[in-house]
């Protein structure tokens, strides 16, 4: 294993030090592991806060800034953060209008955010949570921990962030976040596993001609393994899975996301196929993202997220955003 790190133990701290140096718009507290808007809290505005394991960059810290998150809490690599982080971030960023936690549906994230929410409530700070669970590769049944939260997280963070910026009340921001989640679905495919600095070896094995279908974002193995196919074939598998769960019609936002080690040129090849598929289904792609937005370290592969937009969500999507990883309108 070769990695651009100093030490497997210090990766997260070192990267936060780099983030602090790279983005004057952020206030990075390396010791407490929180990344905040440098501007501090805005009175009367709901503070939108998220967090999760590291290794998914730019998620979440790359989305801290005007029009999106107020703070992010990075955990260890692929490990949810601890309640102290969310607590500290919330205390520093809340502007008196309450705090929204955007939580990806993984047992670890859910439990740690829950503990933080309880502690915050005890301190008299109003908290609501949006649970993101958009991954159609996982059966949402009593036999699983429920669908994972993946690509839709970016959309929920963007749209709740935009709404919070308007001074909307916590309940509205939370409901809108849930609406975005309800309208979004994702599916991911890996060409290669990823290597965590701590493990130092691939998280699973894939043959030279195999791909893994229905992966999450933690280098975990997926649902099944099939022989590698063309981009067109793989996109069809992903899109069929999504379409089965949420019929794809009307205006849609599409995110074709690289898992971290995928060349951008391949993501465009994938996007072309996704666009063709949606055209065939009669859906209209009105907004799109193509790039690395929620990754699994150095994994090669992609995920597609589709969100059925309405006019209001489109407006919120278009609202100005100024973060390290997503920026427009300012």
């Amino acid at each position, binding site marked *: 294993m070769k990695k651009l790190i100093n030490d497997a133990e210090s990766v997260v701290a070192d990267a936060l030090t780099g983030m602090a140096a790279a983005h004057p718009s952020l206030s990075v507290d390396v010791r407490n592991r929180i990344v905040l808007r440098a501007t501090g809290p805005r009175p009367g505005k709901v503070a939108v806060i998220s967090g999760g394991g590291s290794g998914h960059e730019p998620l979440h810290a790359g989305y801290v800034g005007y029009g999106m998150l107020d703070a992010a809490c990075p955990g260890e690599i692929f*490990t949810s953060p601890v309640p102290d982080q969310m607590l500290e971030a919330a205390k520093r960023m809340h502007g008196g209008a309450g705090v929204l936690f955007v939580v990806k549906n993984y*047992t*670890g994230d859910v439990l*740690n955010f829950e503990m933080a929410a309880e502690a915050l409530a005890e301190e008299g700070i109003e908290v609501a949570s949006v649970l993101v669970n958009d991954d159609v590769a996982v059966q949402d049944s009593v036999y699983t*921990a429920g669908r994972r939260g993946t690509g839709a997280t970016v959309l929920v963070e963007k749209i709740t962030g935009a709404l919070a910026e308007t001074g909307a009340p916590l309940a509205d921001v939370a409901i809108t976040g849930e609406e975005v989640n309800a309208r979004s679905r994702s599916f991911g495919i890996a060409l290669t596993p990823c290597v965590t600095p701590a493990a130092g070896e691939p998280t699973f094995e894939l043959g030279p001609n195999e791909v893994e279908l229905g992966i999450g974002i933690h280098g975990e193995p997926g649902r099944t393994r099939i022989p590698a196919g063309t981009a067109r074939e793989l996109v069809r598998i992903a899109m069929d899975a999504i379409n089965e769960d949420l019929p794809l019609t009307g205006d849609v936002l599409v995110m074709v996301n690289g898992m971290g080690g995928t060349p951008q040129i391949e993501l465009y090849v994938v996007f072309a196929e996704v666009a063709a598929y949606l055209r065939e289904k009669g859906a209209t792609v009105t907004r799109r993202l193509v790039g690395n937005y929620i990754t699994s370290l150095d994994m090669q592969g992609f995920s597609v997220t589709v969100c059925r937009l309405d006019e209001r969500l489109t407006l919120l999507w278009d609202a100005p955003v100024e973060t390290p990883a997503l920026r427009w309108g300012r």
Partner: protein
Amino acid sequence: MDTRFFAAWLEECARVVHEQRDYLTRLDAAIGDADHGTNLDRGFTGIRQALAEHTPPTPGALLALAGTTLVRKVGGASGPLYGSALRQMGKALGDAETIGLAELADALETALQAVRRLGGAEVGDKTMVDALSPACAALRLAVAEGIKPQEALSRAADAADQGAKDTISMQARKGRASYLGPRSIGHQDPGATSTALILAALRDVAVAWAES
């Protein structure tokens, strides 16, 4: 069993978890996200540091501090679960300065309830509950039979170990491994395995204690 006994247990846990770190991580790589060993190692190292700074006066306070430290250091699913387990165990022990086997059995039962309440897992879901639950049962039985502590804790450890091994054939219904569906079968659950290690540490400390 006094504060020093429980401190020795936590110390032994820290040692064993550190030693078995890569093993636990490898188990987690197979059906999870390859971090269980590093998670627990970070947590128990944190406990060691916390105790080096200040050792609480009673077993109850000690375990509560250990639990809080896990919550503050571990993250992931295991942090809140083990953290709450130890915290609730500590609470159950109250201010008593020494603890008898029956109280310990009750406290362990409280820990199990904490994990079940928080995580919602039942026996058979392929989680730490599958090791903790039989360990509790074995210990309760041993108490009823009036067996001496090192023997009783040895039975609990064996039950946990067997419980961990039994997870191999299970299909996961909780935690990350559940995403794999039937593909989770054939692998031992990392959390059940660490629970077995923690209970083996308890036995080892009890045996050493009885000998000295």
